[in-house]
């Protein structure tokens, strides 16, 4: 258990003990500590502890006991004051830090509370039941705080068990009208006490605050005037902890690009805007690049010694490789492969080797045959040398197992020197032991922080308006060439689809229903005419048909809803 004294002195000691031990410990501890000052009180307290130990879960009996206890408390308080001992409330208050089992928590808090209470309240008055309840709840806060600390410390051990007693929680959850006044009270009370106690009280307050949050804010947030006054690092930590873990459900931001008021840009404007943005840390990045460039001759040496080089790290490594190529490889045959190119295949890499490097005219049945041919040629002619630069070896098209196998075999040739870059964080998972040994990589971390402009030029940016405008114009163009009836048919389908746009399980309009609707609108007169029209649509890829599980044909317009709405609006304008 954590003791506040220890906390203050800096030597924090935490021990986790079973409930029985806690019980024993508290019984002993209170007994010993209190005995020092007032023996009489000890006797009564101890007796009471013994009594409480035997408490059954029977609620009625407990109440009875509590009443007894209140009576005993009154006597105790009076006794202590009667003794005229100068026991400061905080002294006893501070060493009482029990936790775990509800009974124990309750009992201990009540025990701890007595002197503090007697200091604050009028000495001659016996605390009454009504006065006691709110105070004990503030004590529960204190106990909870202890739990918070123990949890915090426990969290380091990665085992997270909420040890807050269930009953405590229940009580906390219930709105307590006295709670606020009580917290205020304890704050004012602590002002008179020494610094040690102040800290405790402040943590009590924060402890009070945090459970209130966790319990779905059933209790109003307490005024934390004191917390502001005393900046305790520990309490901040507690707050932060609960802030981070307060709500179980994780809220993701719904500020999506969809909600952006601004219209999406087209590719060109985006490009221009990005160009205008200044490059941050230009000087540092340049220095970094120069560091990388100083490695060029080393790379060459290592390539020649049978290693291959792979570059990893944040930022586009294209410029670096390009510089390597222009500065070192000018006088030798080399092959540059842009892995980020969306239609790159291993086959095209192999073909460019066979056709352009080896000047072989002819085709191969499979990439394996082609590879075999290349291997044979390179083994026969030792004067043949080829540098292969692959940008983004881990790109979509090349990351497959077979492609990597072929590339690995290629790179294992002693006269083919491979230097490649990877960007995906899991890219090394592409290679198993066999491939790794074929590749024989040397890894170089070349973080450049430069933007992936070239590499992503084939991708669509989220900021750019997608090809919706194109679909819309094609829609209107096709529709314009059709008859009025056909347009009506398409309209019907589009409207139906928009009506159902919120429905995720919407499969499409079934053919029979559609036919019925069209008939009712006097658009078609027979099943066959409708089918003829649909064929026309299908040829222009305006609709798609799907067969449902029941064998019924469902019709769907494969265009997103926004475009469809735009289309209908435009149609309305035209009409």
């Amino acid at each position, binding site marked *: 258990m954590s003791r506040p004294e220890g906390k203050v002195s800096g030597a924090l000691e935490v021990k986790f003990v079973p409930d029985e031990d806690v019980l024993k410990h508290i019984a002993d501890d209170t007994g010993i500590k209190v005995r020092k000052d007032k023996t009489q009180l000890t006797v009564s307290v101890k007796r009471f502890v013994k009594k409480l130990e035997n408490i059954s879960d029977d609620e009625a009996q407990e109440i009875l006991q509590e009443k007894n206890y209140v009576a005993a408390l009154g006597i105790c308080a009076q006794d202590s004051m009667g003794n005229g001992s100068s026991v400061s409330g905080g002294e006893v208050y501070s060493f009482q830090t029990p936790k775990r089992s509800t009974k124990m928590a309750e009992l201990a808090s009540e025990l701890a509370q007595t002197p503090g209470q007697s200091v604050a309240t009028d000495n001659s008055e016996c605390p009454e039941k009504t006065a006691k309840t709110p105070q004990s709840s503030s004590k529960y806060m204190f106990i909870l705080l202890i739990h918070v600390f123990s949890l915090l410390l426990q969290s380091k051990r990665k085992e997270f068990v909420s040890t807050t007693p269930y009953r405590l929680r229940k009580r906390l959850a219930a709105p307590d009208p006295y709670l606020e006044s009580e917290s205020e009270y304890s704050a004012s009370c602590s002002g008179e006490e020494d610094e040690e106690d102040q800290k405790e009280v402040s943590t009590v307050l924060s402890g009070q605050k945090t459970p209130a949050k966790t319990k779905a804010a059933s209790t109003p947030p307490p005024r934390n005037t004191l917390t502001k006054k005393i900046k305790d690092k520990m309490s901040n930590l507690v707050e932060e902890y609960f802030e981070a873990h307060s709500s179980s459900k994780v809220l993701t931001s719904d500020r999506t690009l969809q909600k952006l008021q601004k219209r999406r840009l087209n590719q060109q404007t985006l490009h221009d805007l990005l160009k205008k943005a200044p490059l941050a840390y230009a000087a540092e990045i340049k220095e970094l690049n120069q560091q990388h460039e100083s490695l060029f*001759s*080393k790379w*060459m*040496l*290592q390539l*020649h*010694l049978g*290693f291959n080089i792979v570059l990893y790290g944040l930022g586009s490594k294209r410029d670096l490789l390009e510089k390597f*190529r222009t500065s070192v*490889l*000018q*006088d*030798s*045959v*080399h*092959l*540059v*492969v*842009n*892995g*980020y*190119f969306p*239609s*790159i295949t291993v086959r*095209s*890499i192999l*073909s*460019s*080797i066979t056709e*352009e*490097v080896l000047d072989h005219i002819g085709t191969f049945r499979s990439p*394996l045959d082609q590879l075999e041919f290349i291997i044979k040629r390179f083994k026969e002619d030792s*004067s043949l*040398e080829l540098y292969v630069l692959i940008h983004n070896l881990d790109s979509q098209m090349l990351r497959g197992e077979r492609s990597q*196998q072929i590339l690995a075999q290629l790179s294992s040739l002693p006269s083919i020197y491979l230097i490649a870059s990877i960007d995906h964080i899991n890219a090394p998972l592409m290679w198993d*032991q*066999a491939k*790794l*040994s074929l590749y*024989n990589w*040397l890894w170089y971390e070349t973080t450049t922080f430069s933007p992936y402009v070239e590499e992503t030029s084939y991708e669509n940016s989220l900021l750019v308006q997608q090809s919706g405008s194109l679909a819309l114009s094609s829609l209107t163009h096709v529709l314009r060439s059709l008859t009025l009836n056909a347009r009506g048919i398409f309209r019907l389908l589009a409207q139906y689809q928009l009506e159902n746009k919120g429905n995720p399980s919407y499969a499409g309009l079934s053919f029979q229903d559609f036919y019925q609707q069209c008939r009712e609108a006097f658009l078609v007169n027979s099943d066959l005419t409708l089918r003829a029209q649909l064929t026309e649509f299908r040829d222009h890829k305006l609709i798609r048909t799907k067969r449902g599980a029941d064998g019924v044909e469902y019709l769907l317009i494969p265009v997103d809803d926004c475009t469809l709405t735009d289309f209908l609006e435009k149609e309305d304008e035209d009409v």
Partner: protein
Amino acid sequence: GCFVFKPSPKKRRVSHKTANVFRQRDGNNSEDTELRFVTCQSLWNQIKSETEQIQEDLNKQLFDTLVSFLRRSHSEFQEKTTEWTCRMKSREIPTAALVLGVNVTDHDLTFRSLSEVLQNNITPYVALLEAKDCPGIKNLMQKLMGQLMNCYIDVDSLEDEDYVQVSQNRIRCSMTSLISWYEGVTMKKNSETPSKKRTSSSRHCQSPPVVVIFKDMESFTTKVLQDFIVISSQHIRELPLVLIFGIATSPMIIHSLLPHSVSSLLCIELFQSLSCKDHLSTIIEKLLLTAQFPFKLGEKVLQVLINIFLYHDFSVQNFIKGFQLCIVEHFYSQPLSVLCCQLVDAKKRVNSLSHDQCENIRRLPSFRRYVEGQVSEKQIALLTADNFLKETVQKLLEDLHVYHENYVPVLRCLHVFTSSLPKYPLGKQIRELHCACLENQVWETEEYESSLQLAR
């Protein structure tokens, strides 16, 4: 996405030589870099041949047993016994299950030397199959036949053009064609004049078995393996086939991969290759714990290499590659590495050191420490007079050499003393002891104390 860049023919000159690349770094003292490169290459070549020799020695026993197994396997076939038991047995394909361990990357080398050994001793007909080449039974047969027929040509290199002309692609890939090919080959050999081909026939017996090696048995698809085994067991009487499975995990895998009906067609004998840990120990002992090679690994580097081995891949090849990288890096980045050679050469090279190199020596932390321990006149002489410095360095190099020569036997003695102690305070393996010695003064460590206590 692919662009080939060819240098213009005018500019095309002799392609980069490794030495040139090495030299490019610092042109001013090129004579030293040249020397450094030569030293580096010769050292690496020595080490490489040494490791290959070690591997060969270690594999020798395994290969011997394998060879005797193969000799035995088809003796019945050659004797053409018609006994009933033999006929029953003859449905079974003799199979060697070669358990090699998880260090897949090392297997390649093992198999290569194995097939070499087999071709020299048993049979010219060895085919190496890999799972990645054989997605289907058809590819497997094609690959197999291609290798067998090629190797026939390679081995005998006779002028019978008719065999060469038959392109492997045009032959229908089937067991029957394989058998007819085999019959043709053996018939031919038997009919040859005995005097002429005596040498080769004595090496290979009359009808040599056809050995098919499955390099990575686990990665083959079950279907392909099953089909191949069933088909070839049908023809085992005509074609003396022997299978060798390379297994990385455990021999049980054969039974889990193949159903009983198929595995009963195999007559399996188990062979265990030596463990990669033993291999590494031998390598370390022969490469590092010897005064033969002037290049030594520091504590941290050695620890990293060993850790990669133990916790990552168990690959001896990777260990050697790492070692190679260390050598290259050392020679590339340290100008003074020119002295990293045999003592006799090193002394000569010290004499011919340039002034810059002398300055390099003076900048060495270890040399500074040495200077600080000297009297002041000597300090001045060491720091100013190149000739005096060279003499001293020669002496120091000699001391270092003596130290290394003494170090290894003493280390071995210490290892013998401590390796049998309970709880192994100084490590079970000699490499652990070596690392401890490199780390700091071993006699000051607690472990040393405790092992002394235990030894008493």
